[in-house]
């Protein structure tokens, strides 16, 4: 095995182990912090696969923004230090089954789609910003646009929901 493969395996192991810790730890904030490790090691995996730009997007969006948002929400609502034993709910077994099934679907999709594709690192094109941009806006432009419409719908939905909340006390006051 070359050193790239060794690193790949190590990073994958870190990603999987920390992902397991995210769902098994009995401390909500620890879960968010383990998520940082998971997302960071996935960024490392992207780097090893020569997808440089995607790796830093992963760090900027997921580690820098999403996890900070998560921590912010946790700190605003419930963030006691120490163990919380009420985190495990009765739905553990069905949830685990669903997770395993979703994982199986995803893994089989990826394997069916890419099982004979080999990345030749010696000749691979480094996924720089221009290469990534060209691919997204030429080859994958339709999925990209569909995704942006989806995000727009989510945005509008969030605004509508927060508007509903804001209007309620005012109406109650008028009555």
């Amino acid at each position, binding site marked *: 095995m070359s050193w790239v493969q060794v690193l790949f395996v190590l990073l994958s192991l870190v990603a999987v182990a920390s992902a397991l810790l995210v769902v098994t730890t009995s*401390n909500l*904030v*620890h879960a968010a*912090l383990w998520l*940082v490790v998971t997302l960071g090691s996935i960024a490392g995996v992207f780097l090893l696969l020569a997808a*440089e*730009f995607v790796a*830093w*997007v992963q*760090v*900027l969006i997921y*580690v*820098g*923004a999403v*996890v*900070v*948002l998560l*921590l*912010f929400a946790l*700190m*605003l609502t419930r*963030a006691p*230090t*120490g163990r919380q034993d009420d985190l495990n709910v009765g739905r553990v077994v069905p949830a685990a089954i669903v997770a395993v099934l979703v994982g199986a679907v995803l893994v089989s999709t990826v394997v069916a789609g890419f099982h004979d594709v080999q990345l030749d690192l010696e000749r691979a094109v*480094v996924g*720089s*910003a221009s290469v990534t941009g060209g691919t997204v806006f030429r080859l994958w432009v339709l999925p990209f646009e569909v995704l942006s419409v989806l995000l727009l719908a989510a945005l509008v939905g969030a605004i509508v929901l927060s508007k509903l909340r804001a209007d309620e006390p005012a109406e109650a006051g008028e009555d």
Partner: protein
Amino acid sequence: MSDLLEALLRVLVVLVAFLLLPLLVGQAEHKAMAHMQSRVGPMYAGMFHGWAQLVADGVKFVQKEDVVPRDADPAVFRIAPAVALLPYFVVMLVIPLGPGLVGQDLDVGLFFVLAVMGIGVIGTLMGGWSSANKFSLLGGIRVAAQLMAYELPFVLVGASVAMAAGTLSLTGIVEEWQPWWLLWQGIGLVVFFVAGLAELQRPPFDMPVADAEIVFGPYTEYGGLRFALFILAEYAGIVVLSALTAVLFLGGWRGPFEDSLGWLWTLVKTFLVAFVVIWVRVAYPRMREDQLQRLAWQGLVPLALLQLALTAVGVVATA
């Protein structure tokens, strides 16, 4: 083998700069602030105008006891300062001083810098949460709210410069830079600087550490070396922000005699911006939380979008 040696040497040089430049800025702050307030500042340490004051402070911090509060989350509490400090070191590795004078030139340098700088905040949040102190927690919440508000204009004007230069490489941006960009990217310069100040929680954006309300925010329970690391992170942040402002908006090593004195120009511009950071601290009172949020969402974000539109028009018109 020589490649490895060269890489090690570059990292070593950046490490020395990383340890030295924040101290220089800190000392400059001591003295400049004092004179702006009609004081003299440190005078005794090191005999000459107190130049060794921060060295003495460092020695004092090292000698102090390492205290972890009883109810704190010890592991998170202990590693938080390192998480806050390390990203700035990593960022410094890719900021160019001159053509070729860079720890590691990256094709997506600007993007890398913006991505890694965001990680430092997690260290502050970890410290704020794990201290098991309500002031720390409040400070942490304020840090997070501030970061989310100011990250958007920060990244948007960064994107504007990248669009103008047609590259994400920091070296490439400086090489494309023209003096009239000071006007064209002027709004971007102001937005970048203000948003950067807010991300560093420097006055007047120091609501997260407002001493009259929440003691010292996320750092309340810290003492000794770990506290010193947080403070070092703040000053390293000033150096990184100033260097980035110089490289992105002020033309880095461009100037008279740039072939021989380019690196000096970058340093001079960096220190000028750092001086303004200090000056702003003395000149403006602390902003309230609602003022902070209003400035970001109603002031900086629209301005950043305007700059982005201006840049796009400029790029299309000159293309």
